[in-house]
Structure formats: C-alpha cells, structure tokens
C-alpha cells in the first residue's frame, strides 16, 4: 500500500529565519523522490514536516489526502531513517528491528519471527543476537532499513543515510536501496546533498536552495535543462560565462560572451524563463560538452590556453584560460594527448549543449 504526499504552500519559520518557503509539490505513491540541496537549504526541515517532528508555520502537509496537522510522528504512516541511523545501542539487532512491533504490543514470538524475516531480506540472516556495535557501517545501514520496514509503513523517509559511509560502500548501497525500494514498492523520500546519489536513484528530484524549491524533475531534466543558475551550477559541474543576448527567435539565441564570435544556443521548452534580445545572461557549458575542435569549421568555436591538468584515471580535467576566463574541460582518457602546454587550444560546443539563463545566484563550490 502506498500513499501519495502533497505539500501545499508549506512555510517553516524559526523566528526571523525562514527555513522553508512556499514548498508546493506532489509525490506520487511508489515514487523514489529526492530532495537535493546544499546543507542548510531546508531539506531536512521539510522532511521533518512530513515525518511529524516539525509543524509547518503555514501550509498543509497531506499524506494519502489527509491533513496531517496535529498528527504526531508516532501516528503517521511514515518511517524515518536518520542520518546517524539512530539504532538503539543497548538492544540486540533483532530487538532493534522488532522495536516498532514491541511498542505496538506484539508478542515476543511474533516479533522474533518478523525480525528474522527482515534479517533475511537485508541479507543478514541469523545475526539477530549480535550487538549493534558488532556490525559494520553497511550492515548497520541495512538494519536501520529493516527496522523502518518492520511495521510496513507507507512512506520511507531517508535523511542522508549514506553520508557516513565510505565511497565504495556508498555506491554499493545506492543500488541496494533502489533494489529494496523496487522490491517493497514503497514511496521513498530521500534527502541528500550528494547529486550522484540523487541522480542515480531517484525517479524525480527537487533541487532546493535557501528554503526554496528551485526545480523539480527527473535526473535528466535537472542535469540537462536546469531552469535556474543555482541548479545549473549545483548539479554537476558547469563553466559559467557572462554574456548578453543578441537575438532570440524562439528556437535559437545568439549570445555575445566576449569570446570572439557570438555563440548560438538553443532555447529548450523545459528550460528557464525566456530571454529577450539585450538581456544580460549567464551561459553555462558543461566541461564534458566542451569539445576539442579538429578544424576551424565548427560552430561556437573559440580559442584558449592550457593552464593545468587534473588526472583522474578515466577522465582528464583540464583547466584552460580563455581571455582571462578559467574554463574546465573534461576528456575521456583515450590514450591520446592532443593538448600541449603553451599551444593554443581550439574549443567548440554544440548549440543544444549550451544553456542560457537569467543571471542568478550560483552554488558556491
């Protein structure tokens, strides 16, 4: 059983400080939905509104169509997985998993049976009598999920549950979380500041900044067609160039970014607000969208100089200088090396890969 969630004009204020402003969104039943944003953007506050630890100052939180106002966290059909997991250190694994049943007065035998079933699900069979401290980080993670699933909630809320794990384990747990979600078919609401997590696991993502939901969409839309400068600079890496719109015919814009010829950039229906000729704009081109020009015939071509290189194994990240502007270029390491120090580097990019947006706040690196 899954329930949809809707936030209607939700505001949360702490005194003078506005943690969440006018959050307005619907999350469908069975969806894997992520809130992505830098720390302090209000995503955890929003999660606490859904789980019932925080009352919105204004607005309505509905779960399955019912207004949740005045319904305590212990009465909501949600289960929250805390950032630090919040496993009970003095209880065994099985007692941890069976805790939600215990407080509902389920008898000991049934509790134990259910705990064993869940241990099976999270691939830790027969480990119920261990102490929490005897488990590894990934195992604790799975126990926390099992505990949350013990009473079959309708919605599972996850507050950066992977942030304490090391990189390899994190990547492994991403696939595992997604697999568990598919298996149990619950609505997952996932909070993260790690765009990799959000992009790989989510059906849809809400990018938040300073209490505001900036954009909602699936991973592809968010990455390829950001609607604000913040989203463009926060999700993935981006080169930013300040420019002025010269022409805009609805399909194609020309933009003067001060790097030789005017650039041609496509208008995308899912993109940000329309720009008129004469508008100041920010032009975003991703490092992997920049392309080494073979000859002088490409579109949006310009010259730059080599500055430095970061070698990452499969990728090479090259820092270039285009008329005083630092640009980043990412190349797949195919064994060739066409870039030489001090020699000019000719670059171009396809018109559909440039993104022109109204100037706005950029995510600080």
């Amino acid at each position, binding site marked *: 059983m899954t329930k949809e969630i809707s936030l209607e004009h939700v505001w949360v204020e702490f005194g003078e400080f506005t943690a969440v402003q006018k959050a307005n969104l619907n999350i469908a039943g069975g969806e894997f939905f992520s809130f992505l944003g830098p720390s302090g953007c209000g995503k955890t506050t929003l999660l606490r509104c859904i*789980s*019932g*630890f925080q009352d919105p100052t204004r607005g309505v939180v509905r779960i399955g169509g019912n207004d949740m106002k005045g319904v*305590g*966290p*212990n*009465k909501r059909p*949600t*289960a*929250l997985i*805390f*950032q*630090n997991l*919040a496993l*009970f250190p*003095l209880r065994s694994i099985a007692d941890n998993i069976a*805790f*939600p049943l*215990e*407080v*509902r007065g389920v008898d000991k035998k049934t509790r134990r049976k259910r705990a064993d079933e869940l241990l099976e699900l999270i691939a830790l069979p027969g480990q119920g009598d261990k102490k929490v401290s005897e488990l590894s980080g990934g195992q604790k993670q799975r126990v926390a999920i099992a*505990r*949350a699933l*013990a*009473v079959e909630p309708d919605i599972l809320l996850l507050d950066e549950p992977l942030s304490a794990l090391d990189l390899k384990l994190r990547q492994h747990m991403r696939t595992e979380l997604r697999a568990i979600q598919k298996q149990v078919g619950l609505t997952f609401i996932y909070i993260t500041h790690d765009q990799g997590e959000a992009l790989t696991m989510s059906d849809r993502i809400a990018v938040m900044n300073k209490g505001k939901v900036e954009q909602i969409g699936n991973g592809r839309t968010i990455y390829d067609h950001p609607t604000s400068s913040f989203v463009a600079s926060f999700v993935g890496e981006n080169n930013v160039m300040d420019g002025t719109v010269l022409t805009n015919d609805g399909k194609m814009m020309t933009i003067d970014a001060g790097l030789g010829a005017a650039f041609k950039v496509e208008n995308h229906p899912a993109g940000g607000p329309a720009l008129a000729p004469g508008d100041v704009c920010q032009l975003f081109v991703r490092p992997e969208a920049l392309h080494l020009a073979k000859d002088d015939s490409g579109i949006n071509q310009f010259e730059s100089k080599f500055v430095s290189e970061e070698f990452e194994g499969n990728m090479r990240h090259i820092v270039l200088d285009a008329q005083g502007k630092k640009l980043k270029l990412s190349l797949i390491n195919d064994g060739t090396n066409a870039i030489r120090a001090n020699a000019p580097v000719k670059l171009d990019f396809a018109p559909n890969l440039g993104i022109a947006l109204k100037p706005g706040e950029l995510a600080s690196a």
Partner: protein
Amino acid sequence: MKMKSPKAMIPGLYLTLFFAYLFGPLIIMVITAFNSSNFPRVSPWECFTTDWFGKLVADDALIEGIGNSLIIGIGVVVVAIPIGLAAAIMLSQVGPKLRASLYTIFIAPILVPGVVIGLSTLIFWDRIGTFFNAPYESFFYDGTFLTIFGQVTFIAAYSMLVFLSRIQRFDHTLTEAALDMGATPTQAFVKVLLPFMAPAIGSATVLAFLASLENYNTTVFTIVSSSTFTTVLSSKVRYGLDPSISAVAVIIISITLIGAIIFEVRNRYNSKGWALVIAERPALKVATHPGTVAGILGVLAIGAVLFIQNYDSNACTAQILEEKRALQQQLMEQQSLDTPTPTQSAPSSTVPSMPSLGPLGGDEGGNEGGDENGAGSDSSAPASNPFGGANGIFAPQNLRGSEGN
C-alpha cells in the same frame, strides 16, 4: 650502590605519606574499637575486648538514630532521584541561554550552606504548618519528613550532576527514532532513555543515600526532636564518647570493604582476559565467581560476629580495674598528704559505685565538663559523664601523673 639516591626515594616516600594520611585514622579507629579503655585510644593498651560492639547494640539511642537515618536515606533517594533526573532531562533539551540560568538555579542548593538550608526548611514548613493550623503531631513538624525534604533540596542537585554527565552522551535522535516508529512518549522514555540512564541511576542512588546518611549540617536543624545516626554521634562526641563509636566505624569499614571486594571481583571476573583464563579451568571458574567470594566473605563476617558475641575479656578488664583502683588509692593517699581539703572523700565514694567506668574513662570528659561547670551551666552535664562534678579532684596535674604510669 645499595642506597637509592634521595631523589629516587621521593615517590615512595610521597606514596607512604599519602596512604598514611588516608588510612592512618581509619586504622587507629579500628584498633581503638578493640581496646578496653573507656576512651577510644590505642595507647595505653589495656585489654583486647569486643565489649564495645555489645555496648553499641545495647545503645538504644544510636540504634534508633541509625534506623531513622536509613528511613531518611531511602526517602531521600526516592524523592531526589526522580527530581534530579527530571532536571537533567530538562537541561539537556532547552536552549543554551535558558540552560545556563536553569543550571545555576538547580545547582544553587549545593552552594548554599547546609545550615541555611536546614534552618530555612524548618522555618518554611513551620510557616506552612501554622497557615494550615496543623497540630504539632502533623508531618509539618515531623523530623523525618522535614529532614527528607531538607536534604532533597541539595541531594537532588548532586544526583542531577551525575545524570547530566551521562545524558550529555545521549543521542536525542534515539528518542525521535522511537517516536517515529510508533512509540508513545512514555514508551520512548521507558524503553530508550531509562535503559541508557540505568548506570547513572545506580551511582546516583548510592551517592544520594550516602550523602543523606552522613549529612549533619542540615539534619541537625530539620530533625527537630528526633535523631539520626549523625546527630547521635555528634552528641556522643560532645558529651563524652566511648569506643562504641569505633565499633560503628569498624562495622561501616567492614561493610564498605566487603562491598568493594565483591564489586572488584565481579569486574575482574567479567573482564575479557579472565574469561579466557577460566575457560578451561572449571574449578577456578567456580572459585573466582563473585557469588563464591561473597559467600566466603559472608561466612567470615558471621564468624566475626560470633567471635565478638562470645569473646570474654572480663578477667583482663577486672585485673586492669583492680590496678587502677590501687593506683587511685595511692593517688588519693598522696593527695591527702599534699592538700588536706575536705573534698578528699568524694572519689572514694564515687568510684566504687561505678565499676563499669574506670577512673580514667571519665577524665577527658571531665576536663570538658569541667569547663562547662566552670561557666556555671551544669544543666548540660549529662549522665554519661558522672565525673564532671568531681572535676576538682581529678585536677590536670594528677591526671597527667596517672597517664605517665
């Protein structure tokens, strides 16, 4: 090369002094409990005796005081522990500014002198009693009730400090997690916070009980007409004390030692290293089990009690008494030669009528009692000091002479 350099001896010397400082008084106290001398002292050694324990058991005032102290101690624990725990929980949940001021308020009773707390408790409840027109038999004037409430004011603060240090390490998301998983706030408290606080509750209970048992400053006011262990002891000290106080010390020290030994044995028995050692040796496992050790200590304690009950030192004490009487006789004769005053007949009539108290037993008390008598307040001269009135005969110079023999 055999001699250590003076520098190398400093740590050893320091340790010796340190332990002598710590344990010296206790050791002397224990020895005095077995000396038949009427005043607790080690020298001169008269007879080995266990009579003081018998005297202690027969001392109704002291036994009643101990009983009251235990009741008050339990009452204080029952009231102070929940208050301290509640205060600690509150402090751990409020904001930093409020916390600082609340902390100061909660901690204030520790800083206020016990005398002030005692007096103000007395006055406060008296006012309330008067307001309700309560009779003097009501609890507003009951020593036990007043003492429990007087002591709770600062013992609750002590226990709060114990709880605070533990609760600071509590992860409050655990409570949130419990709530999120359907627990009621009560369930979250009982199933998550209380088990975490259990060790602190244990140590705070012991601390509160001991602090209540040994409290004097506050109790002496709030106990009103009743008495506790400490007030009985203090009145004994004031009105002439005998080695039954040392016997109390021996009992307390023994209980403490037995408790400490069992606790330590339990810790070592449960340690990982020891678990490996005894894994293969069942005999050693049984021998070092805390229960076994407790049993052995219990048997030893019962043996000591039986020994104390049955040991008879009458022959020796009678002999000492005889010697003293002879000495007394000799002194009196000497005195009558030196100063032929009419008071000389007093001791010969007093001493034989009090055979259980040797003439030396009253001497220290006599000196103190003499001061009071000199001040003209002989109403305070108690029955336990029958020689206070005879102070003139036991003039200091004479007493010194007797001690020298």
